């Protein structure tokens, strides 16, 4: 008699995900092609995406600030390992992008550039989906691509490393 060594039991659970108020504002901004952040009343720093709270000061953030969709790559890695639910096929560059006007980088993918050209300080810009496809979801920004601006000086972003 052969012993049972393992059983496979699929688990399926559905959750109604609630974004919360701050994230909701942020996503509605995205649906209009705008990137919204929030400024902390105490430390004055601008958080993107807006999250409703400044973790540094533990206070609610209310003041809305629109930031640019252009920014600087502070750091990055090249993803080569495949995984089940990734939005992009490896290899791709996953970068921390410090948008102009924000005080905290924002993680996204770089495309339209050779992997070996990706570098810290590179200037990039968001590539959006077509206007009629904009919706309240991060995937309204397809990816970031390099733009013809000189690299940012290390000192301008080193505090974000």
């Amino acid at each position, binding site marked *: 008699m052969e012993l049972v*060594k*393992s059983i496979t*039991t699929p*688990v399926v659970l559905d959750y109604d*995900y609630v*974004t919360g108020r701050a*994230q909701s504002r942020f*996503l509605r901004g995205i649906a209009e092609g705008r990137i919204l952040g929030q400024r*902390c009343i105490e*430390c004055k*720093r*601008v*958080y993107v995406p807006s999250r409703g709270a*400044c*973790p*540094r000061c533990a206070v609610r953030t209310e003041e809305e600030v629109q930031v640019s969709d252009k920014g600087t790559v*502070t*750091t*990055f*890695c*090249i*993803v*080569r*390992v495949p*995984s*089940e*639910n*990734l*939005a*992009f096929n*490896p290899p791709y560059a*996953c*970068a*921390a992008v410090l948008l102009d006007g924000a*005080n*905290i980088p924002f*993680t*996204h*993918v770089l495309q339209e550039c050779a*992997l070996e050209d990706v570098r*810290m300080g590179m200037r990039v810009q968001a590539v959006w989906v077509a206007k009629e496809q904009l919706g*309240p*979801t*991060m*995937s309204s*920004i397809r990816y970031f691509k390099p733009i013809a601006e000189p690299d940012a000086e*290390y000192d301008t972003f*080193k*505090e*974000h*490393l």
Partner: protein
Amino acid sequence: MAQRSAVIGIGQTKYDAKRIDVSMPGLVREAAVRALEDADLSWRDIDAVVIGKAPDMFEGVMMPELFLADALGAAGKPMIRVHTAGSVGGSTGIVASSLVESGVFERVLCVGFEKQSESNAMWALTVSTPFSVAVVAGAGGYFAPLIRAYIRRSGAPEDTGIRVALKDRQNALKNPYAHVKIPGLTFDQVMNSPMLWDPVRYLETCPSSDGACAMIFASEAKAAKSPGKPAWVHATAMRSEPTMFAGRDQVNPLAARMNAKDLYSKARITNPRQEIDCAEIYVPFSWFEPMWLESMGFAEEGQGWKMTYEGATAIDGDLPVNMSGGVLSSNPIGASGLIRFAEAAMQVRGQAGEHQVDGVHKALGHAYGGGSQYFSTYIVADHKP
């Protein structure tokens, strides 16, 4: 006010990609029984049980400690389940020690485990919420950009990580429990292994392992009755900081530095590099060795890589690090932090067999978790504090 606490029993399972030979209860019992045998105790002698493990989605069971209660002899006893992300193993040890230090309990069993082969860890780490885009590929995808930032800040030679990986993997050959063992591994083999998240290569990355580690903490009175040599807890420390805030230093986090300061102050250590004989540090990606050496105060900021380069952290160096092969060789996430604590205690008790360092009086156990934000550490020694 704190009572003294000592480690009097340690048990580990063989770590492997899939421990298909045991169920979850079987896995935790394998470690717990070994710890009891090491301490010459029976289940009845244990007053309380602490379990630590990482996200429940790694096994697909919500609060698995509930169904494991009787496997761990916990029926009728207090049981606590700790979860502090990757540092959970360390936190588990600290909670267990606290239960003894409080004076409320005399012998506490703690177990850290993960049987992540039962679910899909990569998926569990990347569960995407709606409205978001899954771009960060697992833990490696999160940490690789930080490593790149460290390399830039410190000017460390690009092959520093390879040297750490080679050292830890060679050490693993001396550890009967280790998961990943590659006899005859060379520098070139590590260097030529596939790049996973540039700059981190396959052989510089921790495996996904099933396994459990158990420790028994006891009061001074009970430790005196114990057959083996107790490893006395001189200090424990925990610090946390938020994941992401403007201007956060994730490479040399303040929580790590404050944790070290608190730990050494409690243990009355003024020169860690000299006073600590060896360390088991949580290094899941090779570059974390130089990074944590700096935040733990063994080296100045930006200089940690030199200790690796100079061979100071080799098993025959002046501050051996990860003699067991470390997280790079065995990584059941819920247990990995506790394994660091256990291996540090084993060094002090002279139990580490082939990977024993001679003349260890004082050792450091270190665990971290989350986005380099949770730190749990302890110091054990062969004499009372």
